[in-house]
């Protein structure tokens, strides 16, 4: 029998026992709906987590350090390759080279130093770091009080909430609720801070004739030097951030942020300067670390590999997210299994319905065989009926699952709003899930139809026609 005829006959037969077949189809729908709802929740949560992490600027950032920092000792990649002493210096040419790697958005030096800030005549000691203009889109600065730096060279500063608390003497005792960031920002915005810092001042080279040419250490390096001068810089507070933008850095995270160009122009003495004085061949700045922003979190690995090839040590949150992805894979698997259980129950319904249909339609099968239907025709007809129930159940189920997800998302957002938290989209039905769920429903239905179809095909026409 041709497919259109087969489909037509199958649909006609399904209409004949409308109630029973509808109930079976509803069973499949509920199975598919639970599968779709479960998986869309898993996928949605995963997307939400990724989105949050990407926005936090952690996901697409690779931190590059020189091996000379001796930080990554004992890590796998440190065991081979050049020794720290022989490895490259992380200087301006290296930064430019990294910035020109494919898929790299920008590579900016991490300027980070501990210094004293005076506010209201009182000294405060904290870590200061510089932010590139692109950090404006970071989650932590999107929702902060005040505004981002007016320019990359402005003498402005953004404070992290906990430092603002310290400045105002409002640090809450452990366990007490945090003060509201808006209340902290109000007295501080527009006020001035005085930053004291150690400036590295490159001294001009001593004239070479003074050096004996046959000196054992007689190369250009020996002529380099700098002096350290104490400086002050007045900074205007323009923003107070609630979130911690540098959570990845752990104990070295900064609480005060300066515009990058301004920080570079200050030539603040860096801890590495002391070590690199013995090696730096020029007056090019040497960085303790560089932050590399990658176009897409998916390319972090390739960029990391490229930077490692250059002889530097890298670190990215990707190392940490690998376990996160594993977690979501397991979560999706479990949600999928629970969703499929309902579909498995529905498949028993299909078997039952079709076996009942064989008993009911014994005579009809006998007639069809007597007038020339082959075993294959009968088998395909039952198969088509199972498949049609699968398609219908799948389509209705995806719709139902989509609605369930919608409702759960809506309900949760109402709850989130009551808790004065922002609404979230933690539920997603991608196209592959829609298609996959329908195909899965059809496959399950066809597998369920195997036994009834085979049984119908084997029915003896003489027996089937004998009894009224």
């Amino acid at each position, binding site marked *: *029998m*041709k497919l259109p*005829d087969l489909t037509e*006959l199958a649909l*006609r*037969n399904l209409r*004949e026992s409308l109630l029973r077949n509808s109930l079976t189809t509803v069973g499949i729908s509920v199975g598919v709906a639970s599968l779709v709802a479960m998986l869309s929740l898993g996928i949605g949560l995963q997307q939400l987590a990724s989105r949050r992490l990407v926005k936090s600027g952690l996901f697409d950032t690779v931190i590059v350090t020189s091996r000379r920092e001796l930080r990554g000792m004992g890590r796998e990649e440190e065991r081979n390759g050049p020794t720290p002493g022989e490895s490259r210096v992380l200087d301006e040419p290296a930064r430019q080279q990294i910035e020109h790697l494919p898929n790299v958005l920008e590579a900016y030096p991490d300027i980070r130093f501990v210094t004293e800030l005076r506010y209201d005549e009182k000294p405060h000691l904290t870590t200061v770091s510089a932010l590139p203009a692109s950090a404006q889109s970071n989650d932590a600065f999107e929702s902060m009080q005040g505004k981002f730096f007016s320019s990359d060279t402005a003498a402005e500063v953004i404070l992290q909430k906990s430092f603002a608390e310290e400045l105002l003497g409002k640090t809450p005792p452990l366990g007490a609720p945090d003060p509201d960031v808006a209340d902290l920002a109000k007295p501080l915005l527009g006020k001035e801070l005085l930053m004291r810092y150690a400036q590295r001042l490159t001294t001009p080279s001593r004239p070479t004739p003074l050096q004996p040419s046959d000196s054992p250490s007689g190369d250009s390096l020996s002529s380099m030097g700098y002096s350290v001068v104490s400086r002050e810089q007045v900074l205007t507070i323009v923003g107070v951030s609630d979130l911690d933008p540098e959570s990845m850095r752990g104990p070295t995270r900064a609480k005060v942020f300066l515009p990058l160009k301004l920080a570079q122009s200050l030539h603040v003495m860096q801890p590495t300067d002391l070590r690199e004085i013995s090696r730096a061949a020029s007056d090019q700045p040497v960085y303790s670390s560089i932050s590399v922003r990658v176009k897409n979190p998916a390319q972090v690995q390739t960029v990391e590999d490229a930077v490692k090839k250059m002889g530097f040590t890298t670190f990215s949150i990707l190392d940490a997210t690998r376990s996160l992805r594993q977690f979501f894979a397991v979560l999706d698997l479990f949600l999928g299994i629970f969703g499929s259980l309902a579909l498995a129950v529905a498949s028993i319904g299909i078997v039952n319905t079709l076996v009942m249909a064989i008993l009911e339609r014994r*005579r*009809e099968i*006998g*007639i*069809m*065989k*007597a*007038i*020339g*239907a*082959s*075993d*294959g*025709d009968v088998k395909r007809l039952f198969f088509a009926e199972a498949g049609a129930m699968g398609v219908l159940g799948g389509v209705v189920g995806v719709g139902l699952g989509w609605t369930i997800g919608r409702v759960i998302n809506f309900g949760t957002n109402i709850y989130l709003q009551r808790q004065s938290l922002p609404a979230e989209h933690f539920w997603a039905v991608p196209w592959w899930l829609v298609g996959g769920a329908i195909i899965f429903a059809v496959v399950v239905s066809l597998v369920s139809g195997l036994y009834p179809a085979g049984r119908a095909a084997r029915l003896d*026409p*003489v027996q089937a*026609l004998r009894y*009224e």
Partner: protein
Amino acid sequence: MTSVPVTSAARDTAAIRTENLCRHYRMGDTLIRAVDGVSIEIPRGEFVALLGSSGSGKSSVLNLIAGLDHPTSGTVVVQDRDLSKLSREELAKYRLRVVGMVFQSFNLIASMTLAENVELPLRFAEVERSRRDALAREALERVGLQARTHHRPTELSGGEQQRAALARALINRPQLLLADEPTGNLDSHTGTEIMDLVREFNEQLGMTVLMVTHERALAERYAQRLIFLADGKLVDDRANVPDALASAHEGRL
């Protein structure tokens, strides 16, 4: 159309030939010899009645010739095809293209209209829809049911249902019509109408007709040959001048 393989190259004039045909069933410990060594030869175009009381094995012989059942031993050769050598698939094709069947209980599918019932064999034969519709209309016209094409079997009288069944048996232009008590569920007047139609197929379309019946009078009125079965064995086989034919001749004389 794919044809069913023909076994012997030399075409035989017999439409049906059975040789020492046996069909035995085991029911518990007892062996039931439903058909026990029946050998018949029916030439093409003949109208034969298979007579016997119930349980005589006449329906079993018909089912064996229809390819619905397999003989325990012996052979059935229909239009040069040895049925025992056909696969299940080939037997289905044989039933589809060579044989038309009518039953006592009409055996129309209740959920389908008359037109759909009649064209069902054409669906199995994978005939195009437009051609199917035309053929079904033509067949229903032939049995006088052109006004009933969209009715369901339950909305029709027994005679109309049997006519529709005849139209269905006719639709694939089979060479052989097998009828199992075709008038068993009909009153005598309607039965005569149906039998007139069967004879018309036999005479006008040249179909070989094998009719199972226990009504001797009916058989004598229409069949050219009467075969009697009892306890699965052939007990008598004789030629008959159909009454209707005789009376027609008488009328002319």
